[in-house]
């Protein structure tokens, strides 16, 4: 019964068989078409039986339209023949006769008897198998079944007849094109056409895919690793794997609507086609996140559920949609439903799983998925409970691969969620507030766990898992020194360093993944099912959906094209590799190489955007825009932001919204609009979750900005309070990279409050942090601050400050942003001016040059306060030199900036889009 359920005879299959009969006519009949037409028909039929663009079998009307398009002038004949054949069936016996005729399509096992002109289907070819399965299914039918088939065929024809007419008109102008184009293929055999079409399609696909690629988003932090693992885990449960696809997914809402009004007989496609459909949809959901049309797809799922209640994968898709639309309860229910059902009997997808113990292993997978669900919705405690259970159960069942995936997930979870929420689970005591000791201990544990996970994945040869574990490892290396920092100070600092080399090594070995998939694909045995599915995909025709995309422009030849993926690498792998580039970009950001960070982001944006998840895409946009802001000022950044906002639509809140707030805050600070700045940084703080230990990055960012705002408002005491508590937070969670910048901020506060002596130790501590973590850019800026501090201690320290500054210059000028560069220049000028043996007349050029550059860059940033200072100094120098005209100019600029600083609101009003408006629109 099970096999019959998977492949039943339906009217559509009968008509495909009839077409096949025309494709391979019996010996005595003359073949009526040219070779190219013949090939077209064959390809079309192949496409028809393999495509999984939809879940329902096409109606006769659709079939006829497509026939018309592919075979041009012969289409009429084909249609005529097909419809007459189908409508001539009036009794069950006619059907029996028809099916016994079908037997003639197939050749015998011995190829001897074939005549010259005759086309015979190889019984073992794909189409031959199709016919054989149809015949077998028909033979298995009871009499009632035959009667059903008969009535269904009747309905099938009836529906088509009413809608047949318009296509007659449509077909006429196409036919000329068809003939032309088809003649070019006259001498080609089937294979050649396939490959030609593949390459053509690849080229044709490039543009649309680039166009579509920005249409992505979802909230997610630094890495898309979570999603990667989700995909990986998904592929445990369906070993058949995710098939990479580049073709645009079908417009589900439209097709949902299309099917909703037809209440007649509907038949699901074969299970393998359905499986492909499900895979594709799952991919689309994961890629598009919350922009995936919910309602339309829900309709489809419900219909499939109704038509084939035994296909439990529907529940999984339901779960995915709920997950990405933030419907916690729906997701929970559907996930549990899927695993409850699929364990008992299972849908079709249970077959490739090597069953060890009656499919018990699916329960671990269930736990794993549940853990990731809880993680996704921000319940780390529950997620950890579930995942520990998953570990336990998979150990009991000795399901190693599931264990490896679970460990990897735990690593991700614990590295993202911070220590306080996880320390309890990782073997230490259940203390609600993590002390520093446990947090260090926790980091060690995490490291051990990561190593363990990596080892396991390697020994099990789970390549993608290895890659993602390496990625996690790289992230760990990036953010933590490998040995606990029990005592921190300049003495020990040399030993306790993170090593950029290891980070790069990990990241690079992550890239090997691609080459492995590229080179040894056919021999891949570990995930055999996966690769076969994917090899099939290589030639997977998408006839149906291509046709529907074509809008009937009249290009008959284009209408019939094969669409395959441009590369043989599955999408999830590409995604993983893409996120490794993202991590690289971040790593370089931290290490302080702006250009390398930018290059890596650009590589990601150009090469992996199609495959990446929407959150990654949004993230990379944010990175690039931020880069723009620091290096080219706000004007460019805001115009780029506008573009990005449009591309990511309104749903893409968190990442883009965060970016916008950051930029606005930065600009408000520079312009001296402190009220607005305060408001903005408060809004930033609201974005973070109220729970302790969650969203730490965001919280730190918010209070850092708060401190800076207070500093700008000259409320030193409050600013230093905020910064102190921030330092405590960072220390508690062992966030050493952040520590460095907080210390620098504290130094800055002390400097501004005129307490340079107190500022010095902070600056030095920050410096040593930077050195041990290789934070070169931050180090440079710490040196600049240090120079400022020395300078403010008195003019006799100007020399020392200047040497310090010159030491930092290569880094500052090479990688620093506008602000840092300008500041460094300004201080340089100040140093020169302070030097006792400085003479205005001789060395004026050096100073003026530095001041000019500084003032230019500050102007770009609209940093009025500093620009005013630069112009003030400039005016003084000119005054000394007696260049009055230039002095006036400089002093005018000075005045302008001072005025702008005093009335920040005016400037806002001049803007074409006031900030208040932007804020409203965003909310």
């Amino acid at each position, binding site marked *: 019964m099970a096999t019959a359920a998977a492949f039943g005879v*339906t009217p559509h299959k009968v008509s495909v068989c009839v077409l096949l009969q025309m494709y391979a006519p019996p010996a005595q009949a003359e073949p009526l078409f040219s070779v190219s037409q013949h090939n077209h028909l064959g390809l079309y039929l192949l496409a028809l039986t393999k495509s999984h663009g939809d879940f329902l079998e096409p109606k006769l009307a659709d079939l006829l339209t497509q026939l018309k398009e592919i075979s041009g002038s012969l289409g009429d004949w084909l249609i005529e023949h097909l419809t007459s054949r189908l409508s001539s069936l009036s009794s069950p016996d006619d059907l029996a006769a028809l099916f016994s005729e079908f037997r003639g399509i197939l050749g015998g096992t011995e190829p001897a008897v074939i005549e010259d002109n005759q086309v015979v289907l190889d019984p073992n070819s794909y189409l031959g198998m199709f016919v054989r399965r149809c015949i077998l299914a028909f033979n298995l039918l009871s009499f009632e079944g035959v009667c059903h088939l008969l009535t269904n065929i009747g309905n099938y024809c009836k529906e088509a007849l009413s809608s047949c007419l318009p296509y007659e008109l449509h077909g006429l102008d196409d036919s000329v094109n068809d003939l032309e184009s088809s003649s070019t293929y006259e001498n080609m055999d089937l294979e050649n056409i396939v490959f030609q079409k593949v390459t053509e399609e690849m080229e044709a696909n490039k543009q649309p895919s680039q166009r579509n690629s920005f249409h992505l988003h979802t909230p997610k932090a630094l890495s898309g690793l979570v999603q990667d693992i989700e995909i990986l885990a998904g592929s445990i449960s369906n070993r058949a794997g995710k098939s990479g696809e580049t073709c645009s997914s079908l417009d589900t809402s439209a097709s949902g609507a299309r099917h909703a009004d037809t209440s007649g007989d509907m038949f699901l496609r074969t299970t393998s086609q359905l499986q492909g459909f499900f895979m594709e949809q799952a991919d689309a959901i994961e890629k598009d996140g919350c922009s995936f049309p919910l309602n339309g797809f829900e309709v489809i799922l419900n219909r499939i559920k109704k038509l084939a209640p035994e296909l439990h994968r529907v529940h999984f898709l339901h779960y995915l949609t709920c997950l990405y639309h933030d419907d916690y309860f729906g997701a929970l229910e559907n996930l549990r439903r899927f695993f409850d059902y699929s364990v008992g009997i299972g849908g079709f997808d249970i077959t490739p799983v090597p069953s060890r113990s009656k*499919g018990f292993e699916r329960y671990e997978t269930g736990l794993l998925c*549940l853990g990731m669900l809880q993680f996704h919705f921000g319940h780390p405690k529950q997620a950890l409970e579930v995942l520990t259970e998953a570990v336990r159960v998979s150990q009991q069942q000795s399901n190693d691969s599931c264990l490896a995936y679970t460990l990897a997930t735990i690593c991700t979870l614990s590295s993202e969620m911070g220590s306080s929420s996880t320390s309890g689970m990782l073997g230490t005591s259940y203390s609600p507030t993590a002390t520093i000791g446990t947090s260090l201990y926790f980091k060690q544990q995490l490291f051990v766990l990561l190593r363990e996970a990596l080892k396991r994945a390697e020994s099990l040869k789970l390549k993608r898992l290895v890659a993602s574990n390496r990625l996690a490892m790289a992230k760990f290396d990036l953010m933590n020194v490998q040995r606990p920092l029990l005592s921190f100070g300049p003495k020990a600092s040399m030993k306790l360093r993170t090593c950029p080399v290891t980070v790069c090594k990990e990241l690079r070995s992550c890239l090997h993944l691609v080459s492995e998939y590229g080179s040894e694909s056919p021999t891949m045995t570990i995930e055999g099912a996966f690769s076969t599915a994917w090899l099939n995909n290589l030639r997977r025709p998408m006839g149906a959906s291509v046709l529907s995309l074509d809008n009937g422009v009249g290009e008959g030849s284009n209408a019939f094209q094969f669409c395959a993926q441009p590369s043989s690498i599955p999408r999830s792998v590409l995604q993983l590799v893409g996120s490794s580039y993202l991590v690289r970009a971040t790593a370089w950001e931290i290490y302080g190489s702006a250009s390398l960070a930018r290059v890596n982001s650009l590589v990601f944006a150009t090469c992996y955007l199609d495959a990446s998840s929407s959150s990654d895409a949004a993230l990379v946009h944010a990175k690039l825009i931020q880069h723009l802001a620091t290096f080219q000022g706000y004007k460019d950044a805001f115009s780029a932001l506008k573009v990005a906002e449009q591309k990511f639509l309104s749903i893409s809140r968190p990442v883009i919204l965060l970016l916008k707030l950051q930029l606005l805050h930065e600009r408000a600070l520079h312009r001296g609009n402190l009220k607005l700045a305060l408001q903005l940084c408060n809004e930033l703080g609201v974005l973070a979750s109220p729970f302790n230990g969650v969203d730490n990055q965001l919280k730190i960012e918010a209070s850092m900005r708060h401190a800076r705002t207070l500093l700008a408002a000259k409320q030193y005491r409050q600013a230093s309070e905020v910064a102190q508590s921030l330092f405590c937070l960072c220390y508690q969670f062992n966030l050493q990279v952040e520590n460095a910048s907080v210390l620098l901020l504290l130094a800055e506060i002390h400097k501004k409050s005129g307490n340079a002596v107190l500022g010095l130790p902070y600056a030095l501590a920050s410096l040593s942090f930077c050195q041990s973590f290789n934070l070169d850019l931050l180090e440079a800026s710490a040196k600049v601050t240090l120079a400022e501090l020395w300078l403010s201690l008195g003019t006799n320290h100007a020399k020392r400050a200047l040497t310090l500054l010159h030491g930092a210059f290569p880094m500052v000028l090479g990688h620093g942003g506008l602000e840092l560069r300008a500041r460094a220049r300004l201080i340089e000028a100040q140093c020169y001016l302070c030097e006792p043996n400085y003479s205005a007349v001789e060395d004026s050029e050096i100073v003026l040059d530095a001041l000019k550059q500084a003032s230019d860059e500050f102007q770009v940033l609209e940093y009025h306060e500093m620009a005013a200072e630069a112009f003030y100094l400039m005016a003084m120098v000119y005054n000394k030199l007696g260049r009055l005209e230039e002095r006036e100019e400089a002093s005018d600029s000075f005045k302008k900036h001072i005025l702008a600083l005093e009335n920040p609101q005016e400037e806002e009003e001049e803007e074409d889009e006031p900030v208040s408006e932007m804020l409203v629109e965003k909310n």
Partner: protein
Amino acid sequence: MSSKENCRNELRTAIRQLSDRCLHPAAKWAAEQLVGIEQDPAKFTPANTRFQRGSSSIRRRFRTNEIASATPLTPIAGVSYVSTPVMEEDEAVDNDFYLLGKTYFDCREYRRAAHALRDQTAKKSVFLRNYALFLAGEKRKEEESIELTGLGNSESTNCELVTIEIELSTLRKNGTIDPFGLYLYGIVLKEKGNQNLARMVLVESVNCYPWNWSAWSELQALCSTPEILSSLSLSNHWMKDFFLASAYQELKMHNESLAKYEYLQGTFSFSNYVQAQIAQVQYSLREFEQVEVIFEELLRNDPYRVEDMDMYSNVLYAKECFSALSYLAHRVFMTDKYRPESCCIIANYYSLKGQHEKAVTYFKRALKLNKNYLTAWTLMGHEYVEMKNTPAAVDAYRRAVDINPRDYRAWYGLGQAYEVMGMPFYALHYFKKSVFLQANDARLWIAMAQCYETDQLQMLEEAIKCYKRAASCGDKEAIALQQLAKLHRELGRFEEAAFYYKKDLERMEAEEREAQNMVEALSFLAEHCREMKRYEEAEVYCARLMDYGGPEKETAKNILRGIRGDTSLPSMDVDHFRP
């Protein structure tokens, strides 16, 4: 009294009218209620009232109520009652074709009946034709669903729905539709998924013609929440009470439902239907003794009844009455073996005998007869758990839950199955669901608490909370108190532990149970009281502890010695305390 007579007359007419329209189930129901009305003892000989049950005081009380309140309920019935016979009189002499159609219908040749009635315009014939068409479609649908297993299209639909809907909707627009037509229209709309309109149409139907129980039950199936139920605008009729009682029952408002049924029993005191429904409610309230009494009586009056007997078998199963269950199984088997209920009863019997494979076979048969038979799915899950086939059990429970998400037993079963597989955290979700639906069931709370207590989770605080709930729900097996005491002791909260031990002790005394628990409680309390320097109390506990042999006796002696030492009283011979 007059109201009873009224009811009787109304029902008599209704039965005839319903039978004329071949609405047999509704006619059957009405006839059952007709004979269920209490006979007037003055008019009838004692022979007629011989099976009058010992009229309890409760029933008497309700009878007086009923006399007071029955009169205001009936007037609307009078109105609709007038309208119906008027319609009847239009065709005082039945059309010949109608007669032919009806005979075909009675022989279950529905299509033929519809064909015979094809050109008839009388309302009765029109209804009968459509109804015959509908049933023909239903029959075909049933057949198809069997034929189609294997064609990948397992959900077949009634293909006549569209034609019927078109005709009936035009009739309704013209205003020439009768209440029966509305009823049929309602069913068709419900089948097509148009719930709101279906509800409206059915309300219209029952307001015009309240005696059609089938219409009421269709309406009841459409009332999935109390809000929907209260939003219906139903005119007051005594049939509405039947409807409300059954709707309350379905919505798990057991007490309201019971009150309604008991009120109805005032008039319909012999109605098997009302009795069975009361049993149903009592079963939900877990009053098994009462259910058993009711069913024994029901079987005496109506020995060939199969409906609701599966519930009776559940009760017998719970009480482990082997012979009674086998007797019942034999009886229903002889009556009608191809009823899902019969299969379920037999399966229950085998399950009680511990032959789980056979039980599963019969449950499967029951499910083949009715694949939405909720109880069978749940019980089959239990069987699979017994057979250690947890995946199958999970599947069965899940089906039950998907059929009716308010079935707390299946949720509980799911939880148990996962707990058995060593996934207590995963199981918790299901336990939570079940206690949410049945918050006053101590067993569920205890199961959840045990889940929290497992070695893997060790979430003792949560376990304590659950046990507390269980104890407050009246935990019959007295696990909760004992566990509470134990847990508190483990967590080092001795005051609380002592409190619960004392409570447990009191309880054991009240129930006169002697167990190891008693010793445990006593020895803890003795020790604790000594620690707290409440020596007198400690001595009392020690004295009681001395009644038991074994090592406890020695500990008791030691404690007593210690007390003596503490209080620095002159040392006495402890054996002196020996009783």
